[in-house]
């Protein structure tokens, strides 16, 4: 039985979301980029900016040269998160089988929903309408029998047919639909592969489809087989709802960016205190501690350390400090520190509630501190450090 897959794509999602909040940005060239970074790249841009030659991934200074009246917005990930959650929530009424991609993109498997919402095209049109009415965002939609073709269908609208909003590729028409398109439309055909295809004088999917599988494998190895299938519109991948591994995350944003190591260490320990408290509340142990640093120029560094099962901050102080030291690879001022405790679970096997490494004194101490914090707040008591 053929499947019905819908690919929903809110073009230039960050810009689109900002425009919902700030209608004055409509019809203006807008780009999202980190202005403070030295080699800031354009992360997203509006159609108007694109018309002036601004491309995603282009250095900001070049973009400003092409388009001097470009409005540059800093990335606001929290906002995009909220908008994505709303979008997914809305799409959830059409099918439980949703695979969110990046911000503003999702695959929906509508195969089983025909009874409720009609055929794929009807459902897609309805989804678009609701996104427009309730979220005030414009989404394009590709409907096809698999993920590959539905994605290409929506991309074709974005690139070639901005007036339309929906592209429907019938079952059995996949290869004919793809044939005239440039090879760059196929997922996975990025810079290197495209350069190799250019060397072979292969520019359109049609030309690619004319090459035997063994020849493609000769050049591209295993990916050759995939290319062979994709050029013919074959894609068996199912739509996969996300699976999340549980972890405890605590984040602090610095009032002023800073690189004073003492201050950073203090903040990390405070995060650790909060995170381990959640551990103890849920009666869990962690085996994996990660620190992520977001610098003032929006670059990130991360480091992870495995540890024996632990539950109190006293047990993890040293680990947290070395992990922070590892993560802090640059000198640039820090904006945000994120601490993650992963590998959560009960203490291992027969060792009882506390792991062998744990000092029972610490357990008592930690219990007492928790009580004080419950009554007087987190800042009421904390560890001090002798130099």
């Amino acid at each position, binding site marked *: 039985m053929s499947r019905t897959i819908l690919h929903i794509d809110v073009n230039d999602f960050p810009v689109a979301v900002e425009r919902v909040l700030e209608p004055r940005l409509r019809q203006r060239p807008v780009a999202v980029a980190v202005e403070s*970074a*030295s080699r800031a790249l354009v992360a997203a841009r509006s159609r108007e900016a694109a018309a002036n030659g601004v491309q995603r991934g282009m250095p900001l200074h070049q973009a400003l040269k092409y388009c001097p009246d470009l409005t540059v917005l800093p990335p606001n990930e929290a906002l995009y998160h909220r908008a994505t959650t709303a979008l997914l929530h809305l799409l959830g009424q059409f099918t439980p089988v949703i695979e969110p991609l990046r911000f503003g993109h999702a695959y929906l498997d509508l195969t089983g929903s025909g009874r409720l919402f009609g055929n794929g095209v009807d459902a897609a049109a309805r989804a678009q309408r609701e996104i427009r009415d309730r979220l005030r965002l414009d989404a394009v939609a590709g409907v096809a029998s698999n993920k590959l073709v539905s994605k290409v269908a929506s991309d074709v609208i974005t690139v070639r047919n901005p007036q339309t909003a929906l592209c429907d590729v019938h079952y059995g028409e996949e290869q004919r639909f793809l044939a005239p398109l440039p090879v760059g439309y196929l997922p996975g055909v990025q810079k290197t592969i495209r350069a190799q295809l250019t060397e072979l004088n292969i520019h359109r999917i049609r030309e690619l489809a004319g090459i035997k599988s063994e*020849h493609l494998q*000769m050049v591209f190895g295993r990916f050759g087989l995939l290319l062979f299938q994709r050029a013919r519109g074959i894609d068996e991948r199912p739509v996969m709802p996300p699976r999340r591994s549980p972890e405890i995350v605590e984040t602090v944003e610095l009032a002023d960016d800073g690189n*004073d190591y003492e201050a950073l260490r203090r903040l990390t320990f405070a995060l650790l205190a909060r995170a381990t408290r959640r551990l103890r509340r849920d009666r869990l142990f962690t085996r994996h501690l990660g620190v992520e640093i977001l610098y*003032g120029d929006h670059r990130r560094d991360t480091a992870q350390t495995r540890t024996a099962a632990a539950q109190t901050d006293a047990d993890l102080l040293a680990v947290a400090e070395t992990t922070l030291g590892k993560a802090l690879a640059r*000198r640039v*001022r820090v904006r945000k520190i994120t601490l993650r405790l992963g590998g959560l679970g009960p203490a291992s096997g027969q060792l009882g509630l506390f792991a062998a490494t744990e000092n029972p004194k610490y357990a008592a101490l930690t219990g007492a501190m928790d009580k004080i914090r419950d009554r007087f707040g987190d800042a009421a008591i904390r560890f001090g450090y002798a130099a």
Partner: protein
Amino acid sequence: MSPAGAPGGFVHLHVHSHYSLCRGANTIADICRRARDIGLSHLALTDTNGIYGLVWFLQEARAQGIQPLIGAFLQHQSNHAVMLAKNRAGYRTLCRTLTALHGDDPFDLITWLQRNREQTILFSDDLQLLTALTDSGVRDDLYAELIPHRQRHKILQFARERHLPPLASQGAYFLDRADYAVHRLLRAIDLNTTLTRIPEAELAAPQACMATPREMQHFFPDCPEAIENTRKIAAACAFDLDFGGAIFPSFSGPDGEDAQTCLQDQVEKGALWRYDAITPPVQQRMVYELDLINRKGFAPYFLVVADAVRQAPRTCGRGSAAASLVSYCLGITHVDPIKYDLFFERFLNPGRIDPPDIDVDFPWDERDDIIDYLFRKYGRSCVAMIANHNGFKARSAVREIAKVYGLPDREIGLITKKLTSYWQPGNLEEVIATHPVFHGTELRPPWPEILQMADKIRGFPRHLSIHCGGVVIAPDGLDHYCAVQPAKKILQPAGVLSRGDTGLPRALEHVQVVHWEKDQSEEMGLVKMDILGNRSLAVIRDARRAVLDNYGVELDFNRINPQEDEATRALLARGDTIGVFYVESPAMRQLQRKTGKGDFEHLVIHSSIIRPAAAVFIQEYVRRLRGGAWTPLHPAVEELLRETYGIMVYQEDVSKVAIALADFDASGADELRKIVTKKNKHRQLADYKERFFCGAMKKGADAEMCEKIWAMILSFAEYSFCKPHSASFALVSCQSAYLRVHYPAEFIAAVISNQGGYYSTFAYVSEARRMGLEVLAPDINQSLQKYTGVERQVRVGLMQLKGLSQHALETVLAEREKNGPFASFCDFLSRVTLDATDIAIFIKAGCFDILESGQTRPQLVWHLHGWQAQKKALSTPGATLSLFEADTRTPQGLPAPPAYCAEQVWRMEEEILGFLLSQHPLMLYTAKIQRIPHVRGCDLQRHIGKRVHTIGWLITAKVVSTRNKDLMEFVSFEDTTAIYETTFFPKAYARFAQRMSNDRPFLLQGTVDEQFGAVYLNVEEMNYL
């Protein structure tokens, strides 16, 4: 005897200056001043692992009336100690120790010091080191260093147990506690970390400042002998370091003759080679020069330079040395100083104290061989290169500090991008507050702090690098004079044509440098010889070699005189000189064209007048040359400046005018010339001005005339050439012009191959086409590594293929050399083992187009993949030999795509060659160009005074500032017919500067202007085509 007499009170014996790289927080001058202020009679400078600032220290200390003590803080791995020299012998130990510390591998400080301490005093608070030394029986001249803030009680106890004398010290890294912040900052910069993450062991204590003797006595109430010992040591180490004059290698002839005889002999032989007959003026000059050289004892120096020069067939002795007949006869320089009336006193005169300075250009790719030769001939212990002290400049100081403070690059860039020459010490904040380029830049914290700190570390040395060509040779070993340390240096590729190797960069080699930069070396009398690289000499060499190979013609420029060659003169007079040494820049070509002079004498003038010092007089010069009326500055200099139309053109014109007009003697006039070019000259210059005015007035010059001439003299503060130097250069220019006019293909191929010319490869390729040459694509059987030219064709060399590995290039050339040309693509694949990416580059560059004319390039790419797959299959076990034979046959059944479309071919040329080869990029716009009425570049002179449109591709551009400090730009454009010059006056520049780029064509509109026969377009509009 010390200038300060016997040491009194306490003496600082462990002090670091900013020459303790990224450690010390104060300059030597500040330290010496402080030492005087706190009443020190003696002072030791002990920089970490170096004597980088020793010479300045000796001078500053003496200026402050303090006896300098020489030493260094030796730090290696976990051990450290201070070593002070007692005398010359001790100084030698110090130099040897530092050299070993930097150069020996493995090196162990303790083991070294157990054996090498002659005539030095050691002290340390490193207990491991002290224990090891005392255990091995070292007692004399060894002290335990007590530093108040560093476990001094423990060390005192140790000293008493071991019966070591204690020594009071402060281990000072800065003058005041406030400077501790500077020290910390420098450490953070050095260690690439933040202020809060510097490991403790890398920091001095905040107390490590230069305490007063009184304070020091307070620190040691329990141990007065520690203070007493500083005085003892100071008295023992007081000596004056003086090498007694110039240091250069000794030289004796093959049969043991002394240098003077040897020199005389060589010069006389050389004179017979240079001149058909020795005329009285030659004889006279020879005797005069030899006498002066011998009296000054410089004979060995000349012989050593001459010997180095003989190692390369083609050189160009530059600078003032070309004024010397001795240099000319020795073959160091190549311009006849008598024929061209070159001023010998500019080079050597009886009153001049400093040693002569001979600079010689070698072909850029042979230069390292010469340095190598000197190292081999005189031995590593006697030869080193001069160091450069790379320090913090305005931008780098601000940038480095801002990084320590953790600012993002972009924010740093906003400030540093705009920081240029405006910055004087102390005024940075003011500049940023008031200067227009900083308009709108707000200085939020921590910027004010960063700028303050930047002011403090500006000019501090940070690390050593190699001077571009200065070599010093010490007769009896460098360790008598200075410490030496290795510096990494990449040897440049050697010439292919001259040597038959493939001309690729050779391995990294460790070259050693002395601890001093040019000025300190010179102060101490180390005579340097400048071995410089010159591309044009290599161009001439390669082109001559090609002419010999192609036509069997041996061009001997000793017999053929390009200066007398009509075609060469005509070429120079037309300014048709792209690729010709020194005459190829647009400004120089315009000057040639305006004057219409192609003879050697005028070329010498032009080479000099184009320099910034005299460039302001160019207009006037051209006017006079073309017959405009002029009166001499003063009758006394009329004759002197007649050949340059009454204009001071050469450096030595300053001295000559001073002599002729104001009765200066030769050395005084030479001093004047030197002072004019110095930076902080005002005080000295005032004296000379007075002397000059007095002298000139006596000769009847009035005040106004004096002022005028003096202003002309002052213009030589800018960079200028002396006539001997100009003449040396003009000689090379003439030779390359001769090659260009008679052997254009060989010449242009050599120009492109040696790279580094004024223009891009693309511009030279265009020029080749305009010269009527055909530029051929690279070919697997025809191309060499370099470009090759023969008859009317230039073939692109394999060196042009971007991304091609060295290995591939070498392999292909070697295989072709050994077994002949490749017969087919299959033959190629079977004969060389190369990476597929390299083969793909050959294919895409069209290297197989002739060999495999039946197959398209994409077909060959398939073929390559097929061959690779087969090879892979063969490498798996079980493959048989018969399969192996099938390997090289054209595989069957592979896809057979058509040839690349034209646009793709162009794109690949752009990608692999870096420029469009199959046609001029403007041809891509033919349809558009045909629709626009415009004037061709070659027709511009027929539209003088008119407003026209032109089409152009930007070739080169130069921004200059007008007298009102407005910026304007001279830009050379080309179309398919010619290169033409344009001017963007300030208004046009302001409008279009942002738009300039050399990767797309422009439509220009402007008025055609003419000046002395040179045509310009004054641009009013500029748009993308």
